[in-house]
């Protein structure tokens, strides 16, 4: 299974619709401090169902919605879509291509879609469970967090082995 595309709209500093294609084995993202690189990673965490505001560097859940700049007004919702090539059926769902969308409105209303079908957060978590994606997987290492795996307590490390078992 591979990542194909990420579409970001109104999420953090990505006010405008932005599409990233993941067409190669080794992809790099570069840019000046504060330009939005880690925000892309936050968008990926978020569309996988991340609920912890702290992991997204925010204080409230609506902090991820584009808050405006000195010259542009804030937006009313954030939306992220991720597209997978599922031709090896790695995700146990009957689609060659899987598209997951998460949307959050400023009034707190959330929407989740799997291949266009309205779903619950639970369905997204179930889809990714034990697939090395989302919660508890070590497949996303955030900025400044690489050393954490050494200093976490013993239980957390035993979880790593349980995950791989």
């Amino acid at each position, binding site marked *: 299974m591979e990542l194909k595309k990420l579409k970001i709209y109104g999420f953090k500093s990505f006010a405008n619709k932005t599409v990233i294609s993941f067409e190669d*084995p080794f992809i790099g993202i570069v840019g000046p401090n504060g330009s939005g690189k880690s925000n892309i990673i936050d968008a990926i965490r978020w569309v996988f169902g991340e609920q912890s505001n702290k992991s997204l560097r925010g204080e409230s859940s609506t902090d991820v919605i584009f808050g405006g700049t000195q010259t542009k007004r804030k937006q009313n919702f954030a939306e992220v879509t991720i597209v997978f090539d599922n031709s090896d059926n790695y995700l146990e769902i009957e689609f060659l291509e899987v598209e997951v969308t998460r949307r959050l409105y400023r009034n707190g209303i959330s929407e989740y879609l799997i291949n266009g079908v309205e779903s619950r957060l639970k369905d997204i978590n179930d889809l990714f469970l034990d697939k090395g994606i989302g919660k508890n997987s070590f497949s996303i*290492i955030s900025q400044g967090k690489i050393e954490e795996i050494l200093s976490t307590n013993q239980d957390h490390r*035993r979880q790593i082995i349980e995950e791989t078992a």
Partner: protein
Amino acid sequence: FKESFKAAYIQLRSEFQIIFKELFGGGEADLILTNPEDMLTTGVEIIAQPPGKKLQTISLLSGGEKTLTAISLIFSIIRMKKVPFVILDEVDAALDESNVKRYAEYIKLFSSKTQFIVITHRPTTMECIDSLYGVTMEEEGISSLVKVNLKEGENYV
């Protein structure tokens, strides 16, 4: 369950020992069960000894050595569990130039089986990357993304 935990432990430990040696160019590493009698409750301790040095607590290692040890463990997990993709946000920040090179070339090796997405400020990492995306804020406070080649990418760093 106990059997599969033990099997996973044995395999992860073996991968970790191999990968650590490759990234450090030598040395020794280990994963130790704090309570080998009980697979249900045992904790796991990490042992790391860079080449030529004596074994000491992991806390005494340098910033770069800790990063490289953590990277070795992450790569061991990847190789064992075959995750579809890995995302690394500036994990090369503490590495010196020669270790950045090892790290980047190691990813290149692994990327035949696992997709890697990497954020970096280091030119040496950039040189190993297949396709590069540059993020900027042309319009203040608003991010935009554009595909760049290596030469353009070096202006983004």
